[in-house]
């Protein structure tokens, strides 16, 4: 009995000691004064540590791994910034807030990074954002597309388009093709639900309303009953926004089996080999709206060729590549400091990346145009009209 008590007392007191002494003087976040003006004379540490948070395991791992591959490619080409070597520390955010928050704390406090590339899922970014803000660390997300990220904080940036933009392009395309009644099926995930809201808003702006708008359970792959409902609703176009390619593929496959021959639009989560493995020939003609991938851009094809086969879409690792590039440029220009980097990003001229042009607005968002692609012979190609 005595032993147990002692053990517990030790545990608790060690926790408490840590809390009171070691943790003392941690940034309280009140003083926002010391904006860095030392940008002119850039002094860099011997080793520059850059953090990464993204889903490396789980359902969304494809995106996290692709992004990681892009970042790895950049730093394998450019080992150093100035004279300093670069070390990227990859942490698994598992596409959820709690793990991303733990990872952010670890990166910021143990590894002392000034820059985190990530998170990739919006949930990761939103949970990591307040920690990054409080510690004045730059959080550069490439993939989080939730509109909420726009206002997540001063230190939060992304080079990927917000769902808001992508949804507008989709709705415009649907209206341009003269479809009358729209059915919308969205997965119960942050990304898909944000998308759903954006679609509804853009339809409303055009004076329209969907004839069916239903969420489906996360990772659900049995769409038969929902598709029967779509059929009954008399929709002539169906929007499916899944979190992962396979989920979307099952919707497409089962629609074909049901004989539901209407145009299907998907989110930018569809393009992946997985999608075609499952949907097979039913994929033909499915349209997706995503960031305007432009293979004619300088560097695009070369870099794409050097990367391992993407698990999501070819353009994803290139956004990672660009993000790494921008951050490296920033560090070279203003030094290894979160606040200085933040100011640099807001004021930097348009960056000509391999994936897209990048120019941040006052919210740290980047205006990238989106385009419509259609599935043809096992891959998505841009519609040229």
């Amino acid at each position, binding site marked *: 009995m005595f032993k147990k008590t002692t053990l517990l007392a030790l545990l608790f007191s060690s926790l408490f000691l840590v809390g009171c002494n070691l943790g003392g003087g941690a940034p309280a976040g009140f003083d926002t004064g010391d904006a860095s003006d030392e940008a002119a004379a850039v002094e860099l540490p011997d080793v520059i540590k850059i953090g990464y948070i993204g889903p490396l*395991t*789980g359902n969304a*791992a494809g995106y996290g791994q692709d992004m990681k591959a892009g970042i790895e490619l950049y730093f394998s080409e450019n080992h150093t910034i100035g004279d300093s070597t670069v070390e990227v520390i990859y942490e698994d955010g598992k596409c959820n807030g709690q793990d991303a928050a733990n990872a952010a704390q670890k990166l910021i406090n143990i590894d002392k990074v000034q820059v985190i590339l990530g998170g990739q899922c919006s949930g990761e970014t939103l949970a990591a954002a307040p920690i990054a803000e409080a510690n004045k660390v730059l959080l550069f997300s490439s993939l989080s597309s939730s509109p909420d990220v726009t206002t997540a904080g001063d230190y939060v940036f992304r080079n990927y388009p917000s769902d808001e933009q992508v949804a507008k392009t989709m709705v415009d395309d649907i209206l341009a093709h003269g479809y009358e009644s729209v059915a919308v099926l969205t997965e119960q995930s942050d990304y898909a639900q944000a998308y759903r809201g954006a679609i509804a808003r853009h339809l409303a702006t055009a004076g329209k309303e969907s004839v069916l708008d239903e969420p489906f359970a996360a990772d659900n792959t049995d769409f038969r009953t929902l598709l029967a409902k779509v059929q009954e609703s008399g929709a002539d176009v169906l929007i499916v926004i899944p979190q992962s390619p396979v989920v979307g593929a099952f919707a497409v496959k089962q629609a074909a089996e*049901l004989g539901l021959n209407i145009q299907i639009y998907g989110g930018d989560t569809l393009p992946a080999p997985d999608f075609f493995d499952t949907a*097979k020939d039913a994929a033909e003609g499915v349209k997706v709206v995503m960031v305007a991938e432009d293979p004619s851009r300088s560097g695009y094809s070369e870099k794409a060729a050097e990367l391992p086969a993407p698990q999501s879409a070819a353009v994803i690792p290139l956004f990672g590549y660009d993000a790494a590039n921008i951050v490296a440029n920033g560090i070279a220009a203003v030094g290894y400091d979160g606040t200085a980097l933040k100011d640099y990003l807001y004021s930097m001229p348009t960056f000509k990346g391999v994936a897209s042009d990048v120019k941040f607005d006052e919210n740290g968002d980047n205006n990238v145009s989106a385009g419509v692609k259609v599935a043809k012979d096992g891959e998505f190609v841009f519609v040229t009209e």
Partner: protein
Amino acid sequence: MQILVNGIIVGGIYALMAIGFNLIFSSVRFFHLLYGIVAVLGIYLTRFFLLTFEINFFVSMFLGAAIAALLGMAFWQWLYKPLMDRKASSLVLMVVSFGALIMVQNLIALIWKNNTYSISISETIKEGYHFLGITITFNQLVILLTSLVLVILLELFLNKTKYGMAIRAIGDNAEMTTILGLKTNQIILIVFFIGTFISSIAGTMVALEIGVKPTYGLFLVLKAIIASIIGGIGSMRGAMLGGLLLGVVENIGIYYLGGGWQEVTAFILLTVFLLFLPQGMFNKVQISN
């Protein structure tokens, strides 16, 4: 109408899962939560044979199921039996089973990744057959037929063979089996083999419809448990009807409440049965009381 058909097809798979689960539960009397994940392992093996050696679908399915079934026996012999010999409570066995479920699930994820994979018989997606205002696909016909054949074979086995009768006896009374001249442990091993075999086949049917991923282990065993309880644990016919009812109710739920509430309908059904009809539709044994 189409909703009903969808429900019956999904329900047929649940029914198969429930039958295998029931078989095992009535001989060992604890929740064998590993049941689902071993079936999932069988599906991955099926897919592995299908893709690597390009063997016929049905041959792969039987190979996968047989290996899974051997694993099921191994789990009984080396995981549960030592605890059963120590007279551990059914809760302990359930917790151990859950721990093993987590381990196997993550092992599968390590080997084959976390993604959803699909399995298909043919290389193209064909539109289903339409008649009487409903649509049914080739896959679904395969599912219905396989389920039917399996159920008939099992009924014959349980009623016409010495082993089958021993299995039915063991649920009620362990002494009976000794009278029949068979060792209890042998019978339980056979039960694990057959139960797991059925679950793996049922799992492959699921994969034909909606694909497979590591987390489906828990999903499948939950459906099997719910269907068994609805039908009445210990009763084969109950398990079948329970599975069908569950499938139909779930699909009606999706239709009227919306896809977001899919999981909820199943558990409401379970709660209603546990509270008001704890012995299920065909009672044989009442659980925990």
